[in-house]
Structure formats: C-alpha cells, structure tokens
C-alpha cells in the first residue's frame, strides 16, 4: 500500500486545491500571470548587468538565466505541490496538527500536500519561457523536468528540516525563514561570486548549490554522471532528514496546550 496510496492522496489534494482556487477564476489566472511577469522583470536586470560585463566566472546571460529557471522551477514545484509545508509553523503553534494526526497517512506528507500556492504554477511556466528565450536544446526541455522536481524536493526539505524547530522553541520559523531566504536569494547568482567559506556553506548546511548550480552545470552545461549521482543522493538525504526531523519533533507536539506559555 504505502507509496501508491500516498501518491493517490497527493493527487486528490491537488485536485481539491485546484478546485478551490478555480472557484475564483479571475484571481487564479491573475496570480499565475503576475508570477510570470515578476520573473520577467528580473530578466531585464540581468540584461543590464551583462551589458556591463561579458561573463561572471564563465556564466553569461544564458547560463545565468538557466540558474534562474531552475530556481523558479524548484520554488514552483515546492510551493505548488508541497505548499502546506509553509503552514507548519501555524499548524504546530495553533494545535491544528490534531486533524492530520488522526488520519491514516504520513503526517508530514499529509500536511505538505494539503495546500497549493497557485502563483507557484506561474513559476513552473516561467521555466519554459526562459528555455525558449535562451534557445535551449530540445532535450533540455525534457531534462528540466526531473531537475526542477529535485530542486523542489531539496527546497521544501531544507525548509521542513529547519521549521521542525518549531516543535522545540518559540519562533523556530524565524530560523527556517532565514535559511530559506538565503538559499532562495543566493541560488540566482553565478557561483563564482562567492568566496571559499560561503561556497562550503552552500554545499552543506544551506545547500543552495545543489538547488541550482550543480544541476545547471552538470545536467546541462557540462553533463557529468558522477555529479548527477551525487546530487540525487544529496536530494534523497535532505528528504530523509526532513522526514526524520519532523517525526522527532512530533514527539514534542503539545497540541496547542499551554499556548500562553509559548507565544
């Protein structure tokens, strides 16, 4: 059962969420359109930058756009399919986890899939807009699919791992938000701009590089089987870490008791 049923659950959540948003059609399309436009604004920014300088550590306009596309895709996948993860803080502090705990499904998966950020669908579209724009090889259009799924999994797993602190301390989400923010921002720039120490950080504790740079470099620009394998392993490790830290946190869950003491 396990895996298959969990996939069914994800699917029915997705159906339900879309149905819910679909009831407000104008805002549904508006949100998607705005997200695409938002991402397009940044293209202008990079256009200006690459008028000032040819390349940044070997990354020109097209390569940087690829980084952006992967980041947008990863963000899109994580928020469209696992949008509920960003509600964990409220769900834990307000004792709303009770409902999920009485249902026969993995709690983290259940929570993460329970919400969809519609605008994130716009980010996924943007990936293809960019690929067209930079005149990508045809097979890039296919390879990008597993790449953004992996990026999305890493992104949400990192957030969940850190937001699980909410089970132990008040405002654990502040840590998670800072880590997420750093990862998100740093992911969009060519890696050459960072110094040695920061690069180390981005390979490990805040795995920005596995989010965008490694996939861009070794799935597309200079394909390399070993790096592909490593990034698959790292993704799996982060997913496992997210599940483990959330599960450990659950033991400390107090169902909103002693709210006064916490907030």
């Amino acid at each position, binding site marked *: 059962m396990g895996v298959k049923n969990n996939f069914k659950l994800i699917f029915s*959540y997705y159906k339900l969420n879309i149905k819910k948003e679909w009831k407000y059609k104008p805002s549904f399309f508006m949100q998607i359109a705005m997200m695409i436009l938002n991402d397009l604004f940044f293209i202008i920014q990079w256009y200006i930058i690459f008028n000032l300088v040819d390349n940044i550590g070997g990354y020109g306009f097209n390569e940087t756009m690829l980084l952006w596309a992967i980041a947008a895709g990863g963000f899109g996948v994580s928020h469209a399919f696992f949008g509920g993860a960003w509600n964990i803080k409220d769900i834990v502090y307000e004792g709303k986890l009770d*409902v999920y705990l009485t249902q026969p499904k993995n709690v983290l998966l259940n929570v993460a899939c329970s919400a969809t950020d519609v605008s994130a669908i716009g980010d996924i579209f943007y990936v293809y807009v960019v690929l067209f724009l930079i005149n990508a090889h045809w097979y890039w259009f296919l390879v990008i699919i597993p790449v953004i799924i992996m990026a999305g999994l890493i992104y949400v797993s990192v957030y969940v791992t850190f937001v699980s602190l909410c089970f132990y301390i008040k405002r654990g989400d502040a840590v998670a938000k800072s880590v997420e923010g750093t990862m998100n921002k740093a992911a969009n720039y060519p890696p050459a701009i960072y110094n040695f120490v920061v690069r180390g950080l981005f390979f490990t504790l805040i795995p920005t590089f596995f989010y965008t740079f490694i996939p861009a470099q070794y799935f597309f620009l200079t394909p390399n089987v070993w790096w592909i394998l490593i990034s698959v392993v790292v993704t799996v490790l982060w997913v496992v870490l997210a599940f483990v830290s959330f599960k450990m946190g659950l033991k400390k869950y*107090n169902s909103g008791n002693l709210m006064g003491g916490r907030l």
Partner: protein
Amino acid sequence: MNVIEVKNLRKEFITNKRVIKPNGKKYLFKRQKQIKNAVNDISFEVEEGETLAFIGPNGAGKSTTIKMLTGILYPTGGEIKVLGFNPSKERVKLSYQIGSVFGQKEQLWVHLSPYENFKFFGSIYDIEKTKLSERIEELSTIFEIKEYMHQPVKSLSLGQRIKCEIVASLLHNPKMLFFDEPTIGLDPIAKETLRKLIKKINKELGTTIFFTSHDVGDIEEVCKRVIIINNGKIVLDDSMKNLKYHYLNKKIVDVNLKKNVKIKEKDGIKVLKAKDTLYKIEVDMNKTTIDELMSLFSTEDLQDISISSTPLEDIIKDIYRGKDE
C-alpha cells in the same frame, strides 16, 4: 471485550517561563522550567459498545487524555491499548479503525461542499469508490443532511456543519468514535441535535463512543457511564445511574419575588443565599419536588425563576467531601 485499556497513564507538559525580577520586569535570558502534570497516573478500561463520557472542568486533563488515546500526543509514561494498538507506535493502523470529532478543530474544507469533502476523506482512508458512494448515501440518510450536502460548508449553520463533520469521521466505518468537547460553542438547539446523534450512532451503528465535555448536560442524556477527572486524576468512575442518584439529583433554583417572604427550609429544600427578594435554593430531587418548593410561596408573588443543574465544580467538591468523610 475491552476496546480501551489504560494503565498508569501520565503526561507532563514542560514550559520555560521567563523569570520575573522583583521590580516586575522580566529577565532577558533567565528561564525557569515549569512542569505541569496534565494527566497524572490514571487507569481505566472501556468495553465494546459503551458510551463513555470523560468529564471535568477546564484544564482537568480530558483533552490531553483523548489526544493520547488517538495518537496525537505522546504519553510521558504508562500504557495505552486502543483496539489492541499502541496509539503512539501504531498511529496509522489505529486511525483506520477510529474516528474523531474535535470541537473547534474542524477537518472540513470550508470552501467546498460536504459532498466534495466526503470524496476527499474517502481517498484519505483508501475507501473504494463504490463503497464510498454507498456509505455516503447511507450516512446522509441517517443524518438527514442530503438537502445541503452540495452547498459550500461555509454557508452552513453550526449545527449542520457538526453533522457533516460527524459523517466525515464515520465514512471509513470506525469501530470507535472519539469526541473532544463536541458541544463547545454550540447553541442549545445544535447541542440537542448533537446529543441525539451521538445516541443514534451508538444505537444504530453499534459504534463505541468516547467523549469529553465540561457540560453536565451532555452526559445526562447521552451516557451510561461517566468518568470524572480533575487535576489530572480520576475522581470518579461510575455508572450514570449512580451518578444521577448521588450527585445530579440536586437542582439550583433562583427565585426573585415581588415582596419579602420568608421561605422555610424543610427536608430536601435548603436556602443557600437570601438577599432581599432574591433567593438561591438547593432542591434535592430524591427527597422532594420542585412543586413542593413552589408551594412555599404564592405564585402571584413570583417575579422570576430559573432552574439549573449543579455545576460540575460543585459536584467534584461534593465527591471530594464524600471521600473525606
């Protein structure tokens, strides 16, 4: 057969409070560990088909207990078996067998209709499509929700919503149904509906019912057995019949008379408070009747009257007093 077995169950909550300086301000970093024993060494058993109420004042430990039974909270100590499962270790297996309705923690999606919700819950509990439709049909008939089953949940009244909540938790045909404060915040009519429903579920579907409440009214109508809990400990575990005889037989009557009349106490009638024309009178229904009380003054003098049950806090006080004697 026992469906619930609880032995020496305990739950501690630990908080770190900021220490307060003598001048009333808080220290920035100094914290003090505070341990609260929400549930303190309780044991009980529940048989299949029972309707059990778990009652106590706010903060007594009822919700904490029910949450440990359903696998939401990890116990600090002791043993739990629900339908043969250990809730904290076999949460998923157990959840296929039990249903739960938590007052004020709604599980329905408010923007969608109950029907869409039921479909969704079907997939959460892996119910086959045909079986699910049959089940929805059956339950919607029993609970009389068909006429508004396709409206968005947010447009329903509180009473209608709670009915749908219950249907949602019965879809997977659970052997046991847990209610945590289901009547909290409901108006009297909705409360009455709910009480009747709980009885009906127990009778027609044979589901074992376990529910918590701080409202004595809930248990009087619904339950055959009552456990009263206070400060994390069980203070009474008895049949409804006995409880009624010993503790719920007293009514509190508040009367406001037009003029000052002296009300004489007699067997079973005790004046608790008298101020000008206002009287607070306790009437022991085992010994006398309300009519008897009414005969103590002329009905023409009556300005206002209200009759209520003894508050739970007083019953608990009574129980403690009885133990001391």
